[in-house]
């Protein structure tokens, strides 16, 4: 799944350089200096590249920019709150408009409990997203829900800055998935 995502958004360095020149959006000397001085705060560079304004409707980039792939969950919960439902309403609309896409729904959990319990909770989260999308009219056979438990943590800590990102379902649109 990651491979396809990379393919869609990763731009080779040579192409980046070319785009920057062609588009006339090269980082100015002053801007470069600013960025360098901010390295101690964790940022490095700002490279506008993709010509993604008005990303073509129905592309993976359109989904990423205008819909959003992530649904977030509260601790030890697989319930969808208002914000989650708003995101999923947009996903459902997009999927109904572009019926050639299927979606892998990948659930994650770092919540208190055993590894087995985490895996179960992540599956429940992915299933909750699937059930909601189906309730909005998306055909069940276009959706595959899988829980990955603690795999691929965004941040490995018990602080809310980590947990809020870890407790999620990623909706990964795929044109020709193996399901």
């Amino acid at each position, binding site marked *: 799944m990651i491979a396809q995502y990379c393919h869609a*958004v990763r731009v080779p360095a040579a192409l980046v350089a070319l785009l920057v020149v062609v588009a006339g959006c090269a980082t100015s000397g002053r*801007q470069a200096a600013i960025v360098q001085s901010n390295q101690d705060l964790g940022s490095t560079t700002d490279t506008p590249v993709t010509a993604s304004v008005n990303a073509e409707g129905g592309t993976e980039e359109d989904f990423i920019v205008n819909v959003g792939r992530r649904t977030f969950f509260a601790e030890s919960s697989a319930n969808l709150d208002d914000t989650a439902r708003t995101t999923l309403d947009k996903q459902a609309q997009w999927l109904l408009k572009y019926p050639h896409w299927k979606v892998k729904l990948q659930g994650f959990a770092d919540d208190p409990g055993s590894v087995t319990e985490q895996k179960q909770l992540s599956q429940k989260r992915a299933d909750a997203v699937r059930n909601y999308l189906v309730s909005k009219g998306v055909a069940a056979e276009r959706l595959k829900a899988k829980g990955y438990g603690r795999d691929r943590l965004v941040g490995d800590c018990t602080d809310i*800055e980590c947990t809020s990102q870890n407790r999620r379902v990623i909706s990964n649109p795929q044109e020709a998935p193996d399901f």
Partner: protein
Amino acid sequence: MRHAINIPLTRRELFAIAGSLVAGCNLASAATTKPSKAARAYFSGTGEDNGIVFRLTNWKKIDPKWRRQLVEYQSREPQGTVVVDTSNHFLYVIFENQTALRYGVGVGRDGFRWYGRARIDRKALWPRWIPPPEMRVRQPELPESMDGGPDNPLGPRAMYLFRNGKDLGYRLHGTLEPWSIGTNVSSGCIRMFSEDIIDLYQRCPIGTRVLVLKHLGAPVINEAAPVDTEPPL
């Protein structure tokens, strides 16, 4: 395991507060009157959000660089972190594979008064706005408080930045003045297009990490200057 995501800051950075934040975001431009013809050109139609009808942005009037877009972005921040670059008028949500979603922002003078690390501890839909007392002295027509709605200068969403449980007075919010995105303005903190702050709200759960970059080359805003609530000619 905090060290996994926290890059230590120096003392100077941690306490880099360049001014008082007691009043929070000062938004002087409550839309108490109908938008002028010049202002209306920046809107196109209406949308509905949580039962409230609001004016949509006319993207034809907006420089494409301020539109929400996926960019390549080298950062050490973990996914989901919000990085605010006030000097360049961009806000980023960090994604995987060295990419980020970039938004154009307008920076009010209160947006320049602080930098460092923070966290979104509170979020609000169609937030209420309480004009600071000193603003009501200057503009007595302002109400003590204004309910959320299409004429509220905070726009459809606000997200409130905290550090160690303390409200920094620093907010990410919407705007009634889409022409102010990409500029420094006399009021507000970090303002975004209505459509963008609605979008960002979806992507930032409570607990989201925020990094406000140091303002290098940031302008000095003349606090005494009149508040400009009209688009440039």
